[in-house]
C-alpha cells in the first residue's frame, strides 16, 4: 500500500516548479530538450495568426450595418481607441490607436491561452515575451518624445522637474531611475509575474488534489475541494488576464502621453 502510493505519487510531480514552464519540443524530429519549437512557440504564432485572420476577415467587406464579426472587431478597436488612446493621450491618441489595439489584442489572446482547457499555459508566463513587448513600448515612447521635442528638450522635460535649483541634484537621479529604468522593467515584470503566478496557482491546486488523493484515499473529499478551487481560480484568472492586458495598454498610452506633454 505504502509502496504503491509512493509510485502513484511519483507520477504527479508535486509541488510544481519552474521546470513545469519549460515544455518539451513538439517537433517530432528534434530531441526532447530542444527548445526551438515548443507549445509556447506554437501558441505565439497561433495568436498572431488568429488576430491577423480575424481582423482581415471581419473588415473584408465592411457594411454600414455591421455584421456580427464586424461589430465585434469594431467594438474592440473602438474600445481601445476611445477608452484608452483618446482618453489617455487626447486627440492625438487616434494615431496610436492601431498600435495600442494590436498590443491589447496580442496580450489578451496570449494571456487567454492560460485558461483555455487543454492548453492552459500562457506564453506570457515566460519573461521573454512581456520583456520584448515592454521594449517595443519603451523604444516607442522615447522615440515619440524625441520626435515631439528634440533630444535635448525631451530629456529636459523628462528629467528636470519644476523645482528650485538646489534640490535638482537630489531629484534628477530619481527621475532618471523611475522614468527610464523602472518603467520598462515594471511593464514586463507585472505582466510576466501575473501570468506565471496564475499558472503556478492552477498547477498547485490541480496537482495538489492528485497528491492528496495519492497520499491517502481518505483525503478524496479534500481533493475534490481542491479541484473545485481550480475551477473557481480559473474564473479569477480570467479577470487577471483581461486586467493585465488592459493595464499594459493603459500604461503604454500613459507613457506616450507623458512623452508628448509639454513641461508644466
Amino acid at each position, binding site marked *: 500500500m505504502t509502496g504503491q502510493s509512493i509510485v502513484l505519487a511519483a507520477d504527479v510531480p508535486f509541488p510544481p516548479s519552474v521546470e513545469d514552464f519549460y515544455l518539451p519540443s513538439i517537433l517530432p524530429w528534434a530531441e526532447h530538450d530542444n527548445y526551438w519549437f515548443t507549445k509556447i512557440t506554437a501558441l505565439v504564432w497561433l495568436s498572431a495568426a488568429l488576430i491577423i485572420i480575424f481582423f482581415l476577415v471581419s473588415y473584408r467587406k465592411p457594411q454600414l450595418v455591421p455584421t456580427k464579426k464586424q461589430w465585434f472587431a469594431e467594438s474592440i478597436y473602438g474600445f481601445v481607441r476611445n477608452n484608452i488612446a483618446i*482618453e489617455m493621450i487626447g*486627440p492625438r491618441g487616434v494615431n496610436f490607436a492601431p498600435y495600442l489595439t494590436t498590443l491589447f489584442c496580442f496580450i489578451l489572446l496570449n494571456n487567454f491561452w492560460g485558461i483555455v482547457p487543454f492548453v492552459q499555459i500562457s506564453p506570457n508566463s515566460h519573461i521573454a515575451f512581456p520583456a520584448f513587448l515592454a521594449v517595443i513600448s519603451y523604444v516607442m515612447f522615447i522615440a515619440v518624445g524625441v520626435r515631439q521635442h528634440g533630444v535635448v528638450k525631451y530629456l529636459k522635460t523628462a528629467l528636470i522637474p519644476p*523645482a528650485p535649483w538646489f534640490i535638482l541634484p537630489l531629484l534628477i537621479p530619481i527621475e532618471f531611475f*523611475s522614468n527610464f529604468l523602472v518603467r520598462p522593467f515594471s511593464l514586463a515584470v507585472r505582466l510576466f509575474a501575473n501570468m506565471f503566478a496564475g499558472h503556478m496557482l492552477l498547477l498547485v491546486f490541480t496537482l495538489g488534489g492528485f497528491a492528496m488523493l495519492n497520499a491517502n484515499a481518505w483525503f478524496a473529499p479534500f481533493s475534490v475541494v481542491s479541484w473545485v478551487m481550480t475551477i473557481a481560480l480559473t474564473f479569477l484568472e480570467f479577470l487577471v488576464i483581461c486586467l493585465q492586458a488592459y493595464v499594459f495598454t493603459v500604461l503604454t498610452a500613459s*507613457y506616450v502621453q507623458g512623452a508628448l506633454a509639454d513641461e508644466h
Partner: protein
Amino acid sequence: MAGQEPSKNPRGDDADNPPDTGMGMTAVAYLISGMLVWGGIGWLVDRWVGTSGIFAGIGAVLGIGGGVYLIVRRLGV
C-alpha cells in the same frame, strides 16, 4: 466606429489630467526609485568610506523625501 466619436476636447496643458493616467503607478515608482537610488548611492559611499550603513540610511530617507517632493510637484495640483 462603434458609434462613438472621439472626444473633441482639446488637451492643452491647463486641461485636467485625464482620469487614471497611471498616476498611482507613477507615484509608487517615484517613492521606490527615490529610496533605491539614494539608498544605493549611500550604500556605495558606505563601502567607500568604510562605515556600516549610516550613509545608506541617510540616503534612503533623503531619497524618499525627494520622491514625495516629486510626487507633489509632478502629480499634485
